């Protein structure tokens, strides 16, 4: 009315700052209806997680509240936890390593949308899926790198193993790829203390431990101890894994706490930048809210005389 009157009477329009403030808020809200977005670069990760499922991974050398004691179980639980912290848009594929090869179960999948499925498959990974029982760590890692390379340069290989070579190899194969061509992490699993390897039957029931007697056909005579020790022991072969990480140009991480694995997987140097459209409606809405609230305080308030 005032505007009309002002126009009719040809007076200057003076609506006051409160009207302008609320008008601006209305404009901001109107903008929100058109779903404004801002294109931003966000770090995301594309991982191929390859897990050693040879029998030494059944050894029990983890003691952590609420986590399995066996290496494979601990790896699975740690990955499960880490997956929850990877930003949406990141992709994860799972693979298995045994004998000389890494085999991919599925191509990397976006984790937020497919989380339940990825978690289910991870849960089902089992040493009994091994297609043979040897473990040639270096060859497995190299094939893992090849599998990752096939899936694009921004695919990072994360290779979980205790480094337990079986049968022992005096001459490790040379790495014929280019060091550092693919990025990723070799994750050392297990403890520094040698522990026995459980023997499990097909139903996963323990039937003792692996002994030298069982393995003598596969071991060179030099590998069989003469001091009468019976049990074939395993420990994390960190020297070998460090060496393999160095020659391939991967990072090395020793798995001690699941939280540390999460941090290692969130490392900036493994992230790739993806352009994504970020919803900015909430920032506009917040400004509108503040503008509205601002009009409820009158900074020009004077002491009013004659107030009863």
């Amino acid at each position, binding site marked *: *009315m*005032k*505007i009309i009157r002002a126009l009719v009477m040809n*007076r200057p329009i003076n*609506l*006051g700052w*409160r*009207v302008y403030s*609320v*008008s601006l808020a*209305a404009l901001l*809200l*109107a903008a*929100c*209806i058109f*779903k404004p977005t801002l294109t931003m670069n966000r770090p995301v990760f594309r991982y191929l997680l390859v897990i050693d499922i040879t029998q030494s991974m059944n050894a029990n050398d983890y003691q952590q509240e609420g986590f399995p004691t066996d290496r494979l179980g601990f790896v699975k639980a740690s990955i499960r936890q880490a997956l929850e912290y990877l930003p949406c848009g990141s992709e994860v*594929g799972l693979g*298995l390593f045994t*004998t000389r*090869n890494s*085999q*991919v*179960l*599925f*191509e*990397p*999948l976006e984790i937020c949308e*497919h989380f339940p*499925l990825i978690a*289910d*498959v991870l849960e*089902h*990974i*089992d040493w*009994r*899926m*091994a*297609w*043979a029982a040897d473990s040639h760590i270096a060859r497995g890692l190299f094939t893992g790198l090849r*599998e990752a390379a*096939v899936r694009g340069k921004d695919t990072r290989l994360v290779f979980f193993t205790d480094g337990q070579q079986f049968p022992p190899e005096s001459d490790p194969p040379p790495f014929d790829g280019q060091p550092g061509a693919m990025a990723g992490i070799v994750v050392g699993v297990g403890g520094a203390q040698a522990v026995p390897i459980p023997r499990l039957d097909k139903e996963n029931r323990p039937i003792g431990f692996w002994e030298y007697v069982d393995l003598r056909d596969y071991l060179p005579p030099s590998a069989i101890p003469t001091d009468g020790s019976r049990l074939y022991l395993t420990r994390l072969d960190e020297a070998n894994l460090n060496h393999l990480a160095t020659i391939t140009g991967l990072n090395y991480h020793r798995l001690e706490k699941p939280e540390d694995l999460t941090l290692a997987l969130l490392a900036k140097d493994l992230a790739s930048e993806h352009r994504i459209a970020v919803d900015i*409606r*909430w920032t506009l*809405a*917040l400004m*509108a*809210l503040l503008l*509205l*609230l601002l*009009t*409820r305080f*009158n900074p*020009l*308030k*004077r002491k*009013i*005389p*004659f*107030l*009863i």
Partner: protein
Amino acid sequence: MNLAFAQPWGLLLGLFAIIPLIKSGQKPISYSSLVLLPEDRLSFWLDLALRILASLTALLIVLGMAGPYLKEQWVDKIGSGAHIVLLVDRSSSMNENFSGTYLGGTSSESKSAIASRLLAEFVERRKQDLFAVVTFSAAPIYVLPLTQDHEAVRSAILALGGRGHGITNIAPGLAMALEHFSGKPVTGSRIVLLVSDGAARMEPEIAESLRQIFHDEQAALYWIYLRNPKGGKLTEAPKNANESTSPEYYLHQYFESLGIPYQAFEADNPKALQDAIAIVESLENRPLVYQEKLPRQDLSGRCYGAALICLLVLLAFQTLEVKAWNL
């Protein structure tokens, strides 16, 4: 409850909505004596209504910022389709082409690469089916549970094209494939689609227990046998046949004896494989209760819209405010 918030913490800002109730922000105007003014009930109610309106606007803005959405919902539908477990051979011989020549790990002509490609197309056409994936060589590998997440199924099938390792051991693979059905209600036809280029001898006890499980789970079996053109046929008994030299023939006999819906397809070239998949496709179109996913629905836009309407009403009243007794 179907309603959820993307940023529930944002709702805390809703406390600010109290401010407009307490403060109107209107400029006070001096008047010589308020006592002289008559009590105006209309003004009182109008003032209260405007305060509530402003508070409501603030609430709606905050609600929008918290990102309310209707969760994705699964709706039961009836269509035609099936629950299909893809049981795929990943033994080292799958790296060869149909004539048995090894082609190297990444060849697109290997049996595994062709099977992978054709199965991916098959899955692509079967939008309503549920798929599970089991691969096997010496031991079975659990790749995917029965799921309608076709993107995941596709990613698992594409991975099948890679290099395989180890020998062919079918029985444990079949057992794992059938496990995918166990404990689930039968809501449509159940199929194990076995794709392999060979077979292996089966222990009699295992053969017997598999027979039982096939019956218990009411599953049908289709076997796409990727045959070397020079190799033996499933239907012709080889000379001097025994289970170790021609296990395929015996496996076929065993499958036929199971008393379940069973059909074998011999494919000795990519075209034959494609035809076999087409036949399986035409066979399995029985009614099926399946679920369709309705995507999550963002409601914050509506909140902002409602807030805008309230704000415009407020604005209209604000322009009417009197700042001084004389303009």
